[in-house]
């Protein structure tokens, strides 16, 4: 029998690969909790894949670190007063990684591809009626109706420019062969293991200072931190707030914090009996100890919400935060006739931090008599449940659900319309609490149909003043993004939307 054992040992040894060499040099390892789903920008729905695509491809416009719109492949742009015509002058002398020239024709190929309606991000170009080529380096978008947030649509990762030659060659297989104009050239994607991008030696904006970046998915928080501490990753995101204590005294590690555009709130079912009463919803806001939830459930990595969308978005107007005042909350409950409280169901995705936050909200609402049970489920089930609610029947089940939103276009419209307008009732968009108010619909439309910053600012200011007090949500907080990196790495930053930029990455001694 002994021989059998040795056979197993031998088998194990045979199966183990010969050691290969450690690649040294200016090669960076980026460890993240996310996995790459696709590298076709027009068909990308997640922030992480979109951020990698941004290192390979560029759009006419882009965002800087603070989410301001900047021209990239477009040199300059102009638009008419009614926000129906947008003209772009393109930068000259830029070529894609495969040698194809960047020009008006290339823009048209990309926009036409989006406009076929086949892709996840086709909706970005839905307002476009026509794309005109004025000359080789000038294009003009003509819109069906006024659309004030159109510049944001063009800065979105869904509107990145792919090489027309690559699109011709690969068709939709371009998702595994992305070719752009960006600082890095796509090299290899081993599904489930990593994505590797290499330096573009002919980058039009200047010299790229590192040789390659490898994006590795490491879902477990503790392991990601261990990789950084052991020097096996240069940059990790997210850095779990609970574990900051482990690295803050490490001389080789630096923690980066970045305010985000991700707001968290409790969705209140405004069609159900007690929650349909504005006073009850205000009482809930008074009863929530936002700071305690941030400190305990979120590891301190957030700031209390002080408007219906985060301050990093344009047209933000400060409102709060809503004071924590249990006495006032009780008074409002009494006024509304619910002195003895009522029962609700607490719904939450089962990620630990969100579960903790919901649990704390439940503990705090108990003080004003609102009691209930938690139902936690995986994210897919959670959104399935919420989006299957019907306007007619949702009122029968009072629920409070842990919600969150990030405006992927970086614009105020996308931070309000999908969440608060009547047209956004499920399943159409994400107004899961069925909040309905004609005044809100009017203001959202006013902000959408103008490109004039003054008009838009006025509409969104009024909208924020109004909705804040209507309390369709239990306002919680705005996430602070935390990344950590080795100190000799410079130039990689988290972006407010949870993406990142690697263009200026550099390894110093």
């Amino acid at each position, binding site marked *: 029998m002994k021989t059998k054992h040795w056979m197993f040992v031998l088998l194990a040894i045979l199966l183990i690969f010969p050691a290969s060499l450690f690649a040294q040099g200016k090669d960076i390892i980026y460890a993240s909790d996310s996995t790459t789903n696709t590298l076709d920008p027009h068909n990308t729905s997640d922030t992480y894949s979109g951020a990698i695509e941004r290192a390979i491809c560029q759009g006419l416009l882009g965002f800087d670190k603070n989410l301001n719109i900047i021209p990239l492949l477009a040199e300059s742009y102009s638009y008419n007063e009614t926000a129906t015509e947008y003209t772009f002058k393109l930068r000259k002398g830029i070529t894609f990684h495969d040698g194809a020239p960047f020009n008006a024709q290339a823009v048209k190929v990309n926009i036409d591809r989006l406009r076929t309606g086949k892709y996840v991000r086709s909706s970005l170009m839905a307002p476009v009626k026509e794309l005109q080529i004025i000359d080789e380096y000038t294009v003009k978008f003509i819109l069906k109706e006024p659309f004030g947030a159109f510049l944001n649509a063009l800065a979105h990762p869904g509107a990145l420019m792919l090489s027309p030659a690559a699109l011709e060659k690969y068709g939709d297989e371009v998702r595994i062969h992305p070719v752009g104009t960006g600082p890095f050239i796509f090299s290899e994607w081993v599904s489930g293991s990593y994505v590797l991008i290499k330096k573009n030696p002919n980058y039009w904006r200047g010299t790229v200072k590192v040789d390659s970046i490898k994006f590795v998915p490491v879902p477990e928080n503790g392991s990601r931190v261990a990789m950084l501490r052991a020097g096996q990753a240069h940059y990790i995101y997210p850095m779990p707030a609970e574990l900051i204590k482990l690295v803050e005294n490490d001389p080789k590690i630096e923690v980066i914090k970045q305010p985000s555009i991700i707001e968290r709130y409790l969705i209140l079912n405004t069609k159900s009996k007690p929650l349909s009463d504005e006073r009850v919803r205000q009482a809930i806001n008074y009863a929530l100890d936002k700071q305690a939830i941030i400190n305990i459930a979120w590891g301190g990595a957030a700031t209390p919400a002080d408007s219906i969308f985060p301050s990093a978005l344009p047209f933000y107007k400060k409102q709060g935060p809503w004071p924590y005042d249990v006495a006032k909350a009780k008074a409002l409950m009494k006024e509304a006739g619910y002195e003895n409280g009522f029962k609700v169901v607490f719904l939450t995705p089962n990620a*630990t931090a969100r579960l903790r936050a919901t649990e704390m909200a439940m503990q705090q609402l108990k003080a004003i008599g609102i009691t209930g049970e938690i139902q936690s489920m*995986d994210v897919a089930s959670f959104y399935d449940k919420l989006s299957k609610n019907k306007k007619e029947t949702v009122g029968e089940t009072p629920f409070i659900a842990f919600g969150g939103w990030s405006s992927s276009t970086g614009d105020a419209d996308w931070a309000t319309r999908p969440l608060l307008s009547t047209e956004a009732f499920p399943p159409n968009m994400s107004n899961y609490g069925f909040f309905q108010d004609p005044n809100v619909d009017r203001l959202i439309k006013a902000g959408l149909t103008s490109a004039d910053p003054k008009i838009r600012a006025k509409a969104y200011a009024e909208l924020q003043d109004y909705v804040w007090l209507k309390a369709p949500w239990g306002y919680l907080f705005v996430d602070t993004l935390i990344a950590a990196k080795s100190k000799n790495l410079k130039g990689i930053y988290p972006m407010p939307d949870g993406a990142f930029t690697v263009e200026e990455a550099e390894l110093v001694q």
Partner: protein
Amino acid sequence: MADKTVTPFLIFWHKFKRQKSALVAGIFILLLVLAAIFAPVIAPYDPYATDYSLAMMPPSKEHWAGTDVFGRDILSRILYGARISLAVGLSSVAIGAIVGVTLGLLSGFFGGFLDELIMRTSDVLFAFPGILLAIAVVAILGPGLVNVIFAVAIFSIPTFARIVRGNTLAIKESLYVRAARSMGASNSRIMFVHIMPGTLGGAIVYFTLRIGTSILTASSLSFLGLGAQPPTPEWGAMLAESRDYIGVADHLTIFPGIAIFLTVLAFNIFGDGLRAAFDPKIR
């Protein structure tokens, strides 16, 4: 001894109490059960009472096992949690064992088509990873503890069936079964009187091992949001919820971890003692 009637129970007890370690383990389990029953009396604090100002305090004179993220007393939660964890572990394995042992016996004894049917069905069951199975059960029945018990139970069935079947195959061919058969014993008599006791050794050992595994499985299910819903102080859930703090506040995981560890150990040693005491070959 001569004036006492020798009942099977006495034989069992006589043999069992010789196993000192099993006795200790048995006492531990008994104490655990008592602790679970009398948790409201002996727990120093309310296991659900939160106090944010006491969040994540290390063990102290007031809180022997420290406090958790919400400032709840961990010791009190462990005592209350004993009820839930024991209930989940015992009942899920019990259901799995009863069904599994029966199927394994039938399968091994009759062989042929029945064997084929049962074993292939158990293959299918095996093929479904436990976590997927749990998601399915919860999808159909809704989240909650009772459904977790079912999910874990179903997962145990095929292993019990295969172990018992393997032993049945061996014993079926043994001399004493052949002897019994030649003496005209009925199928059911051979199966339950002659074969079953011989197969139980393996099954009991697996039973005791499985209780620990079940508690841990419940923990991973809790982590997936399919197990005990917060604030229920189930041990596995306490462990899973606290893993974000490993390295920062280790007492959050260590104490529920120790509770699980000792419980599993006790069941193992106890099961071992049982096995020896049941064994007719040991005198």
